[in-house]
């Protein structure tokens, strides 16, 4: 049972990890993340990298949709912007990969701010539809701009660190996971600051927020910019990971995937973004194993994909109807159970 957690200063109250147990668990998690690549085989390393990229992007979307309340179906388009930036820079400039990642984030941020401009005129669903339009515009740009390789896309040479090419899952893990951890911590910290609270105020009732003195357009654009920065960096990581970027790599369905991830995980919590991304990335893998196990004779291989699509839809509908606060809420309930044990309420 959790006791002796009275806070004695504002600083303590606002801390990210506010008790010793939490800090110990966080340290253990860090150790586990470091030890993982040495224990997992190639396939699980691949999955871990993919999950990390999705976590980064989902966290970005959470900032925009979960915390600021601006629904966006353009996250994949911003990832595409980031990925293409990395690809173009690698081809024309070369240079240090961290710089390319930063450039990817900045370009995506610019895109995000442009897309966010209509947010002064339109709200809610209409804004979501503007982001869908942005998705299509981005796709058009990717296909038809002269320097983006057209429908064939572009290949990306692996990132180089001191002469070592990051071309295996093991090596690139050390790039992707620390960057993701940094971004997640950054997002968590964001919501201890004035800016984060302003976002939450906008989500809850934006007219009231304006009355309170929060300049709406500026903060909405900031939110768009930040979330697309995250998407851009995630897209850059994606480019270094898959090493081929095509216009079909970032379809609208991917944006829907991220939105579903934060809904399933829990909108408006950092943990929700992480849990949701992990869950939604792992479900297809688990499904494939489960369908293979079914006692159905003959080739069940062709049923995996439709079943996966159905399960995807069922998850979204199910979580929205039965558990609107997502996996994060489930997690909180478990934690409360342990905090209160042996008491019940």
């Amino acid at each position: 049972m959790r006791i002796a957690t009275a806070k004695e200063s504002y600083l303590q109250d606002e801390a990210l990890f506010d008790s010793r147990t939490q800090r110990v668990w966080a340290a253990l998690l860090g150790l586990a993340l470091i030890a993982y690549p040495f224990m997992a085989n190639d396939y699980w390393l691949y999955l871990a990298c993919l999950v990390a990229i999705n976590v980064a992007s989902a966290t970005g979307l959470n900032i925009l949709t979960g915390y600021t309340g601006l629904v966006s179906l353009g996250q994949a388009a911003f990832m595409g912007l980031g990925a293409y930036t990395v690809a173009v820079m690698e081809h024309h400039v070369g240079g240090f990969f961290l710089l390319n990642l930063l450039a990817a984030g900045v370009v995506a941020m610019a895109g995000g701010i442009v897309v966010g401009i209509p947010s002064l005129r339109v709200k809610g669903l209409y804004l979501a539809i503007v982001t869908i339009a942005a998705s299509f515009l981005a796709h058009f740009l990717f296909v038809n701009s002269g320097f983006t390789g057209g429908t064939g896309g572009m290949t990306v040479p692996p990132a180089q660190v001191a002469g070592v090419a990051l071309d295996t899952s093991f090596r690139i893990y050390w790039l992707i996971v620390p960057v993701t951890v940094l971004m997640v911590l950054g997002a968590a910290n964001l919501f201890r600051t004035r800016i984060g609270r302003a976002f939450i105020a906008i989500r809850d009732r934006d007219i009231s927020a304006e009355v309170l003195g929060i300049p709406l357009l500026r903060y909405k654009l900031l939110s768009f910019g930040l979330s697309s920065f995250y998407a851009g960096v995630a897209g850059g990581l994606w480019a270094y990971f898959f090493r081929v970027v095509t216009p079909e790599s970032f379809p609208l369905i991917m944006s829907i995937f991220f939105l579903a991830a934060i809904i399933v995980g829990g909108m408006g919590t950092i943990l929700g973004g992480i849990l949701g991304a992990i869950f939604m990335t792992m479900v297809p893998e688990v499904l494939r194993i489960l369908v293979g196990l079914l006692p159905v004779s003959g080739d069940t291989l062709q049923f995996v994909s439709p079943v996966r699509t159905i399960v995807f839809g069922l998850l979204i509908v199910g979580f929205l109807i039965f558990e609107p606060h997502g996996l994060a809420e489930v997690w909180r309930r478990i934690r409360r159970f342990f905090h209160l044990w042996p008491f019940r309420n």
Partner: protein
Amino acid sequence: MSHRYTGLSRFMRRVVAPLGVSLGMALTPAAQAQGDDIVIGGSIPMSGVFAFAGVGIHAGIGDYVKMLNEQGGINGRKVVYVPEDTGYKVDVSVAAFKKITSQNKVNLYYGDSTGFSKTINPELDRKGDILMTGASFATEINDPDKFPAQFLVGPDYTEMFGILLKYIAQETPGATVAFVYSDTEFGRDPIESSRKRAEELGLKVGAEIMTPPGSVDVSTEVLKLRRARPDYTIFHGYVLAPIPEFVAQGRQMGLKSRYMGTFWTMDNSTVMQMGENADGFMGVMPFRYYYDEEKAPMLEKIRAMRPEYQSTAYMQGFMAAMLMTEAVKRTLDEGKELTSKNMKAALQSIRDFDTGGIIGVPISVKGNSVPVGRIYRADYASKKMVPASDWIILD
């Protein structure tokens, strides 16, 4: 309202159970190949938009492997086929590749799309011990320098257009041709080079019409086609739609064009779905159809194994397995190791090879492709595709 604690059981059911199963599965070893077996891995599009082809390819590869093993395998070594479904999505394909290669020592691989072949190329070069082919006939891959570990099971799309254009130039010198293609990488692949080819052969390219993928209504495009009044219209980059609409509306408008397609549109069932308008539809096929009457010992074996009609995708998978295993056999016969370099060299040594009648003439591998094909025409009365030309070999 008292807060009865039900969250834990819900959590168990929804999250822990699937995670537990997956963890269990990760730790138990999967059924896999023995030490010196030859392994063919496959990213097969058994579901998704290409499912029709994927099911056929899957059966084709599986059957050839079975046949080969019944004859003792390759130099006594068993051949094992390890497929995964990808739904024709590149990232799922890559995941399947990583999974199969981490659980087996893979020598040969079949990829499901052009996108996948391009994505996995650097990885293939790094690994250096896999020879790969796939469902893609992309022109870009027909480059032994850029894609040293890959090859195409037939002519690339530009070569297919080349065969069609050669036929047109023979039948109707100086004809007007129109290209109708989809706005995808698949569709755009051969258009540029084929335009030049057409001009070299003295044909006029009357129109190049691109349709957005998944478009329903092609009326405006058909109107553009009417403006061009082509003698021949070549479709590329589609599986079925919107070709039937084009053909139907073209006929209604009184367009006198003859219609042609490239490999993936040429399966019997696909063409016959056009109804009466299918009659006279032509296209280039590198392989024979299941029901071809001409003498072909391999076709007879297939017909014995599978009494019902097998699609062109089946033929493609079958041939892919044949070529891949032949490369392995030649490498082993020379006592060399199974590296991608050696296997590729063995593949390129294939000259005047008898495919048992799947392809009507002995074939040679040129570069990364096998540039041979025959024009077939749809005969709606008999619901079959009949040959309309000899086997054309490009250089």
